[in-house]
């Protein structure tokens, strides 16, 4: 012990004490997803379009001072000009206002239908995934049968039944009809995830600590399936909007004077025949923009959520 003199030692400085501190902030999952999504220019374009569409569908109807139902027979079929920015339709209604009013309903239908899909899908899939094997198998068989019923045919049938006056369909019926079969992909996705995550170590740990099935589902499994569900949600909104537009185009859409982008396009088809192509082109552009925006955002999210693609 005597051979160690004190001058062999150095006093620890303040910097040395910090040596083991992690300098860079650790990147958590969701901020990392957002960081990678931000790098995807196409997806960000989609996000910007969606946000501006939502804002415009709320305030856009008030910008140029016309209402969506106001008819002016002295100004029918006006091509776009300084007063009517998108022109007027065959009843002299201002198309600019009507397009945003229609976008409001299209978006609302898309979001509400997806919300129902989401709720039923997560519940059904979650229960099937957590249930015993034979219950799970039966539930999935039923889901498969429902899913192989052609989607739009069911929606068309239901719209026929509930709009028997021939005056158009109410929004509620449209949404319910669309949700009738479209919750199935969501439930299959959730079930698959649940089955996979149920076997994971942390679920086992929670179970051995005495957690109930419901607790494990709520606290461990659902938060971890959120990513794929989010992608599915983003991609099912444009699907509902597309279905609604197609229905409107077949004359089974919303009741006038309410309008969606689909009913506007359907009205515009008649206008095109007499040389007023803008009446269909303008709503068509907005339908396509919405479809484009949600689809690229969904694709971008899928890439951003995939940890294998992380750089």
């Amino acid at each position, binding site marked *: 012990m005597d051979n160690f003199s004190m001058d062999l030692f150095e006093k620890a400085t303040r910097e040395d004490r910090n040596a083991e501190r992690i300098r860079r902030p650790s990147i958590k999952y969701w901020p990392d997803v957002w960081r990678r999504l931000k790098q995807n220019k196409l997806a960000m374009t989609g996000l910007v379009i969606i946000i501006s569409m939502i804002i415009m569908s709320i305030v856009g109807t008030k910008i140029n001072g016309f209402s969506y139902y106001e008819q002016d027979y002295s100004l029918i079929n006006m091509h776009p000009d300084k007063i009517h920015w998108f022109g007027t339709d065959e009843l002299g209604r201002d198309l600019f206002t009507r397009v945003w009013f229609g976008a409001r309903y299209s978006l609302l239908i898309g979001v509400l239908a997806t919300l129902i899909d989401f709720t039923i899908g997560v519940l059904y899939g979650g229960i099937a995934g957590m249930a015993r094997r034979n219950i799970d198998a039966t539930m999935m*068989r039923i889901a*498969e*049968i429902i899913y*192989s*019923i*052609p*989607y*739009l*045919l*069911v929606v*068309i*049938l*239901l719209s*026929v*039944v509930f709009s*028997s006056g*021939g005056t158009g369909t109410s929004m509620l019926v449209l949404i319910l009809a669309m949700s009738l079969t479209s919750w199935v992909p969501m439930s299959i996705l959730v079930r698959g995830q649940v089955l996979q995550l149920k076997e994971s170590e942390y679920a086992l740990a929670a179970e051995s600590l005495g957690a109930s099935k419901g607790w494990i589902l709520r606290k461990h499994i659902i938060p971890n399936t959120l990513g794929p569900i989010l992608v599915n949600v983003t991609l099912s909104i444009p699907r509902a909007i*597309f279905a609604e*537009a*197609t229905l409107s*185009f*077949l*004359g*089974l859409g919303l009741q006038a004077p309410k309008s969606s982008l689909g009913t506007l*396009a359907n009205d515009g*088809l008649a206008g*095109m025949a007499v040389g007023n*192509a803008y009446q*269909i*082109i303008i709503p*068509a552009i907005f*339908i*396509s*923009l919405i*479809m*484009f925006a949600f*689809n*690229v955002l969904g694709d971008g999210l899928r890439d951003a959520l995939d940890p294998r693609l992380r750089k």
Partner: protein
Amino acid sequence: MKKYLLKRLIMSVITLWAIITITFILMHSVPGNPFAKEGKMPAVVYENLQKKYGLDKPKTEQYIIYLKNLLKGDFGDSMKSRVETVNDMIKRGFPVSAYLGVEALLIALTIGPALGALAALYQNKWPDYLSMIIAIIGISVPSFIMGTVLIQFVAKNISWLPIGGWGEFRHTLLPAFALALMPLAYTARLMRSSMLEVLGQDYIKTAKSKGISKAAVILKHAVRNAILPIVSVLGTLISNLLVGSFVIEKIFGIPGLGLFFVKSIVSRDYTLIMGTTIFYSIILIVMLLLVDIAYTFIDPRIRLTKEGR
């Protein structure tokens, strides 16, 4: 293998039965009377009409009669047309729709995968960007918009391509293209990602190092494996084409089954709505079954295990 096919067959039959039952219940729960639009009619005429369509019997009996007739291949009488039965209309309309559908499918399945494969081979070069642009247009522009755009900008300028009607081959080109765009875009995207995955596999490297020509590696090894996911989505594509055909036939005025269906909705011809819905479902379910069977034969991995090599 046999067990699997049998299971699929039973599932298909159950599905079909479910569709028939749902359709029947829905169409018979429409409030009001199907002849209301004909104006006021004497009570005797009304009673006779009820009797002719069997509407005077109890619902369960009607259902059993309908099922029995379906088994015989009889879809019943149309409520609006005095000359044609639903079967006549299907016989007249379906070949037209099928022609259009097959043409659209051929366009989509030749151009789509080719475009996707090129995009993967020339990743981040112009073929890739071209296929990306087409894919984006394909998924964001609904077919009814594509149809009207084609009429407005193509048919109106090129007199050889008519804006509507049916009869000659040139009548089919624009509607088939409008119908094909969505599946084309979808298969191109699918082919691109699956091709990229296959190209990164070891057996491609092996094939290249064996000195096989580039074309043979791409065609025999890469494309053959990359095309499998496309076969598996064929069912969905056909189902989309079917629904797309309602809209396209309406726009171009093509006398197919889709147009009959749309007209039957507008005129509330319940027997025709029911008949076409069920007919469409049969076609679709048979297609899905065929695709599933085809898939088990095409995928070499499944075939190899079957033969026990």
